């Protein structure tokens, strides 16, 4: 099996461990991942204004690159890229006038876009194409006794109709099922779809610290030892902003936040280089060592 891959900006620096762990895991699962030879930033946020077509050009150009790579679907890892690409595609697919105007504007592109590329999140691909049963068979290092809280944030599930297909917007369970098949104890917690504060982290880190305190404390109360995410902005806010969180809320206790793919790669037997724990701000190694996983 082969899939086109759109990484997005942050997967190439702060979230390099998200990419590396995914690539190693996919290799173990026999999926050939082919990064687009050319891509640009997706714009990170979907433009909500009715008259703002300009900002849909960036995601649509990426979908053109997918077509030019000879593919009709593309995989993303970052929840924000997933949202932007998928929603821009839905927008112009359902609005022929916007589609025509966008294509007119991009007249220098050699390929016309017709809304004919399917945007898939890695979790969707693992569930529907690779299948969870097959992944379970390939687990070499089951994550025994590790209590994992699964944080979805906003864009894996919202808005309705754009988030992961087949998942309840208020109570998604795909990540819990996924962590269970890797051998971990999946912990449910009430803040799993609550916004982390997103880009407020740039000039209002105190807003993010308040959310991080609430979200992670809630996970800890349910017994979680680590939290997994699928968005580099959630990862930064819940992991790196623990520094500010501890300053503002002295009773807060640090906990490791990982990409779900780091645990997948670990369970499939990938090496240290692919796991990239050095990029995690709160070191996950002590708890993983304690469980005999590394």
């Amino acid at each position, binding site marked *: 099996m082969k899939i086109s891959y759109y990484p*997005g*900006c*942050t997967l190439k*620096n*702060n*979230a390099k461990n998200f990419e590396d762990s995914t690539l190693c895991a996919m290799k173990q699962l026999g999926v050939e991942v082919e990064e687009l030879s050319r891509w640009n*930033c997706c*714009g*990170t*946020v979907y433009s*909500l*204004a*009715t*008259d*703002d077509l300009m*900002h849909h050009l960036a995601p649509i150009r990426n979908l053109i690159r997918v077509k030019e790579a000879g593919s009709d679907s593309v995989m993303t890892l*970052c929840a*924000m890229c997933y949202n932007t690409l998928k929603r821009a595609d839905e927008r112009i697919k359902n609005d022929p006038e916007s589609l025509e105007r966008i294509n007119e504007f991009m007249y220098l592109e050699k390929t016309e876009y017709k809304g004919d590329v399917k945007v898939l999140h890695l979790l969707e691909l693992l569930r529907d194409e690779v299948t969870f049963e097959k992944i379970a068979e390939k687990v070499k290092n089951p994550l025994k006794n590790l209590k994992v809280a699964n944080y979805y944030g*906003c864009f894996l599930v*919202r*808005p*309705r109709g754009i988030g992961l297909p087949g998942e309840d*917007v*208020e109570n998604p369970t795909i990540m819990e099922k996924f962590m269970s098949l890797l051998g971990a104890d999946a912990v449910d917690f009430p803040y799993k*779809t*609550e*916004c982390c*504060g*997103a*880009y*407020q*982290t*740039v*000039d209002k880190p105190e*807003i993010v610290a*308040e*959310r991080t305190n609430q979200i992670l404390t809630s996970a800890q109360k349910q017994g979680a030892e680590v939290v997994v995410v699928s968005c*580099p*902005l959630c990862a*930064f806010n819940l992991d*790196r902003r623990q520094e500010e969180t501890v300053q503002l809320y002295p009773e807060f206790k640090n906990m490791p936040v990982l990409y779900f793919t780091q645990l997948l790669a670990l369970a499939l037997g990938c090496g240290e280089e692919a796991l990239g724990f050095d990029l995690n701000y709160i070191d996950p190694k002590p708890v993983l060592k304690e469980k005999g996983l590394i």
Partner: protein
Amino acid sequence: MRVNISRRRIKDPFVKKVEELSGQNLLACYQCGKCSAGCPAVSQMDILPNQIIRLAQLGLKEELLESKAIWVCASCMTCNTRCPKGINIAEVIEAVRLILLRKSKDHLIVKELSAEERAQVPPIALISSMRKFTS
């Protein structure tokens, strides 16, 4: 909060502009408050999401344009998901922000961020905050 309402204000072009930019029918809102009940950002807001819709319905643009709340909303889409009338509240708030941004009234002055602050955050954070807070 004390407000003066008038027919003149309700007919202010501002109301129409918000409806156009957001693609929403403001009068569909019957003020159930579900958006505010589920909003994770209310603790930081001076006015609540349902009040934003009410002020927009009544054309009380100064109260809206000067509010802190419109910048605290991070478009997490929880309110949109829960509105029983199918109103996209996040889109309404985006419209109000855009009315200011399109007059070049930026909320974030990138130059004022220190080199350290800029270097610490990942590209995804910087780009999204510039997309939401600058013109």
